[in-house]
């Protein structure tokens, strides 16, 4: 460790901060580093492959002799298997292997669970063969509705204790469950002060229930894997995954193979959003099935989920029912918040509500957040882009607005007054001006007063995330050849953010070489250890490792140049085009590389553990708290209930922006996903039959081009001093506040809240009391 003075902060709030930089780290890029390539809107280096159909996804993999697998799934939400046999499936046309995945006597706990599988020469033959499998079920009592399942006496989903399934997509935490009662399993509380006592004394108290729906990830490429055995104890797997190394480890464990005998390839992946960690999906053992069928058939097997399977057994964002109490005092301060939430991750765990209620408005002295998982007979939930956070943000932000109205307080000022994050406060203030907040609020109030048919409304909400970038996880190898080629290798997958492009930019920056001259090899386990794309950690874990490895290679080049020029390495000047000069001599990059004594320089490096978190730490932990704020505008037709999000202003911090273009794409994606969650998406389960009614993309609505608001993104460069490039994540933070801001905007437009997502026309009409015979729902 050596203390270094860095220029950290943001906008006009830059200061000198002493940071303990671990030995061997290059001086971190900070607020005064002037970079040429990093941060620029460089188009993706593999874009040409994606626009021409040449990018090969797992779904596109074709191997000689490859078979197609299909899985038979339980049609009932809870059942005992009375009898089961492959029947004529094994002999069906084109079938090369078949296997049972459940046995007589097994208790099946959701509609969609694995029962049996076949591999055949064509996908339609595999599906045909499933019909020949004979299974007799005894239907058992079940429950799919969260609130019914939480009641005493509800049918029990699990007969034995359940282990929490953790993935790299979960927010890092030490959460352990406190045992269960019936189907309800309590998670650890978040507590400061005494919320109950403070609420008793509060001058103003607002109390209401808020609910959010189950959302499915709906990545366009479904979960899938292709497995080829290369020898008895060696295999190659092409997998649609956001965690190449978790796929490898899972297969190694299932088949007791050394990890070195498993190659995993993910050249391209058609979206993940948190559901694709591992060879299997949360609710189906895809990796095992494909590999076992391949072993039995002696041929490679491809197993891709159908869209129906993707909805029912590959994960989802759990729902939530949140009882919120929030209190303010006579002086206009917020004094206490109490949130008690239940939610279902189906047969799985993890229906928390994130950090928003507890950790954004930290000047509220008394806060208690309690959350419980409720088991239901439905496919397991799993991490989905900022697990828990959009749910939590929705309830707390709308509750603040509702209390603000009672307190006759300005809801934006209330937020700023209770937030301690300097970046977020700045974003609130700058954003309000840019968005025209005051004028817009006045306009919607006037329209409400006149009870006009068409209304607009605006709302604002906050985002919180941590810089979870990992030290030591990604090992990046750089090879600079005698022919002046520069190759950067790491086994990271590109989930769609363009990590390969950013890798090239960082290498180009250090060497002062053109981006096009850098060859990037990613997407394969043999390229060296890396991180899963979860927790918004990819860029912050990989780019510092790239910089460190390239800097090491450059140090060797400088030493070589010094030797050739007869000067000390530190007297060699590295020119803006990569030309080295010193002692009156100079060599172009190519000429210098030609002088390499060996074939090439090869260096490998990782990034250090985070060493800074200026200006604000996350939850008292030594890591940066990532700030963001979104303003939303909606338009509502109060006669029909039709609602549209018309405008979103997104103010986001992602440390040092590495590539403005791809960064904006990610934020657009977060906002559009959030808009879709706010207004359109909902998994519908039939309570009587326990099956999903809209397991497709025509009745499970995701936002299309016409549902998208006008988006303005303002990127705040924040120099954190956390790692050698200063990158932090943005994928998840950008989707957290959208639905909350939209819900607040709808409240502003109508004057009455819609406390349940998705905000549909029916709910709007009900909230306005325009549904004859129906009361106002709460």
């Amino acid at each position, binding site marked *: 460790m050596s203390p270094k003075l860095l220029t950290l902060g943001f906008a006009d709030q830059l200061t000198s901060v002493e940071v303990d930089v671990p030995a061997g780290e290059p001086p971190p890029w900070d607020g005064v580093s002037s970079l040429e390539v990093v941060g620029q809107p460089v188009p993706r280096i593999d874009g*040409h492959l994606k626009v*021409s159909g*040449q990018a090969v996804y797992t779904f596109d993999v074709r191997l000689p002799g490859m078979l197609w697998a299909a899985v038979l799934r339980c049609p009932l939400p809870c059942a005992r298997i009375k009898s089961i046999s492959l029947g004529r499936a094994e002999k069906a046309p084109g079938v090369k292997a078949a296997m049972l995945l459940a046995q007589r006597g097994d208790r099946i706990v959701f509609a969609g669970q694995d029962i049996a599988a076949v591999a055949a020469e064509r996908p339609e033959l595999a599906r045909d063969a499933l019909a020949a499998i004979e299974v007799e079920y005894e239907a058992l009592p079940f429950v799919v509705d969260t609130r019914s399942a939480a009641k005493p006496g509800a049918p029990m989903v699990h007969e034995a204790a359940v282990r929490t399934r953790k993935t790299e997509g979960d927010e890092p935490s030490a959460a352990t469950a406190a045992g269960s009662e019936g189907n309800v399993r309590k998670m650890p509380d978040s507590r400061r002060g005494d919320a109950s006592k403070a609420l008793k004394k509060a001058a103003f108290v607002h109390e209401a229930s808020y609910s959010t729906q189950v959302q499915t990830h709906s990545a366009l490429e479904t979960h899938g894997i292709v497995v080829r055995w290369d020898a008895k104890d060696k295999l190659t797997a092409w997998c649609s995954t956001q965690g190449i190394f978790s796929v490898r480890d899972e297969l190694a464990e299932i088949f007791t193979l050394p990890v070195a005998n498993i190659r995993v390839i993910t050249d391209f992946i*058609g979206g993940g959003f948190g559901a694709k960690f591992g060879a299997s999906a949360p609710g189906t053992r895809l990796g095992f099935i494909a590999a076992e069928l391949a072993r039995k058939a002696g041929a490679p097997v491809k197993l891709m989920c159908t869209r129906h399977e993707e909805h029912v057994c590959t994960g989802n964002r759990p729902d939530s029912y949140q009882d919120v109490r929030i209190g303010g005092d006579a002086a206009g301060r917020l004094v206490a918040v109490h949130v008690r939430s239940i939610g279902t991750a189906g047969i799985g765990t993890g229906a928390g509500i994130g950090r928003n209620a507890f950790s954004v408005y930290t000047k509220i002295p008394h806060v208690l957040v309690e959350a419980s998982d409720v088991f239901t007979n439905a496919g397991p939930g799993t991490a989905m882009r900022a697990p828990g956070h959009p749910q939590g943000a929705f309830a707390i932000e709308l509750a603040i607005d509702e209390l603000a109205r009672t307190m006759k307080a300005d809801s934006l000022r209330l937020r700023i007054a209770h937030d301690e994050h300097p970046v977020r406060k700045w974003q609130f203030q700058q954003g309000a001006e840019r968005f025209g907040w005051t004028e817009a609020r006045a306009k919607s109030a006037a329209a409400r007063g006149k009870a006009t048919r068409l209304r607009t409304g605006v709302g604002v909400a906050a985002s919180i995330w941590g810089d979870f970038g990992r030290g030591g996880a990604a090992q990046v190898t750089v090879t600079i050849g005698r022919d002046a080629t520069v190759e950067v290798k790491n086994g990271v997958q590109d989930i769609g953010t363009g990590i390969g492009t950013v890798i090239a930019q960082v290498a180009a920056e250090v060497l002062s070489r053109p981006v096009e001259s850098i060859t990037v090899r990613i997407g394969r386990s043999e390229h060296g250890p890396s991180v899963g794309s979860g927790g918004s950690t990819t860029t912050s874990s990989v780019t510092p490792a790239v910089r460190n490895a390239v800097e090491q290679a450059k140090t060797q080049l400088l030493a070589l140049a010094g030797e050739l020029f007869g000067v000390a390495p530190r007297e060699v000047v590295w020119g803006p085009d990569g030309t080295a000069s010193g002692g009156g001599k100079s060599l172009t990059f190519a000429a210098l590389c030609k002088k390499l004594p060996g074939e090439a320089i090869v260096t490998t490096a990782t990034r250090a553990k985070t060493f800074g978190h200026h200006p604000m730490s996350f939850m008292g932990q030594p890591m940066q708290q990532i700030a963001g704020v979104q303003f939303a505008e909606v338009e509502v037709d109060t006669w029909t209930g039709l609602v549209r999000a018309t405008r979103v202003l997104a103010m986001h911090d992602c440390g040092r922006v590495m590539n403005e273009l791809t960064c904006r794409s990610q934020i657009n994606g977060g906002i559009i996903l959030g808009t879709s969650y706010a207004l359109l998406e909902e998994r519908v389960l039939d309570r009587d039959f326990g099956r999903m009614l809209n397991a*497709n993309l025509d009745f499970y609505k995701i936002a299309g081009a016409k549902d998208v608001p006008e988006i303005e993104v303002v990127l705040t460069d924040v120099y954190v001093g956390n790692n050698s490039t200063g990158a932090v994540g943005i994928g998840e933070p950008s989707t957290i506040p959208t639905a909350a801001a939209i819900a607040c905007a709808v409240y502003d437009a109508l004057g009455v809240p819609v406390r349940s997502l998705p905000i549909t026309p029916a709910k709007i009409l009900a909230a306005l009391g325009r549904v004859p015979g129906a009361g106002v729902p709460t």
Partner: protein
Amino acid sequence: MTSPTLTRRGLLRGAGTASVLASCAKPNADDASNAPAVSDATAPAEIGPGAVSVAFNLNGKPATVQVEPRVTLLDALRIDLGVTGPKLVCDRGACGACTVLVDGRPRNACMMLAHDVAGANVTTIEGLGAGDSPSALQAAFVRHDALQCGFCTSGMLTSCAALLQRIGPNGAKLTAQTVREAISGNLCRCGTYPHVVAAVLEVAGATPLSKAAVTP
């Protein structure tokens, strides 16, 4: 009902398009399940259930496949012809990821049978320009980052290419609203829509004649 076209929905129900229409009027038309797959007079003779060969033009070259009548155009392209640009996402005409041009018009290849395109010109993303010689539209997609994971991109781009072809010399008048209309059948989970619209508008403005925009 004179179209000789086999449709996937009709075929899967064991009834031709004509009897599907009839079944709307007569709820009990399920009894017609023994009816031949194609029941109108102008249709070709009954084919299948085994594999039958079908020939069409694929990206400017003749192609022939031997497939069962139930095989979709998309499966024939992807599995039998190895053309994997168009993707299968929803398998029911809801997402546009499988969009191809059939005689110049954008169609969902998951909703057509391979035998529907006998003799037709089929263009996939692969036929709109390759990596080393991209069309103006493809280059604009890359420049504007109109793609993230890229899984929707083939279909999205094909729909946009069809739009540019459709508007012909009136590119300069193209509005964002029209582009959104044109891609309203193309779902993207990564949220590329704003950049797609920007890319198409730029190409339409820069090259008034759409031909240059969609062919390399």
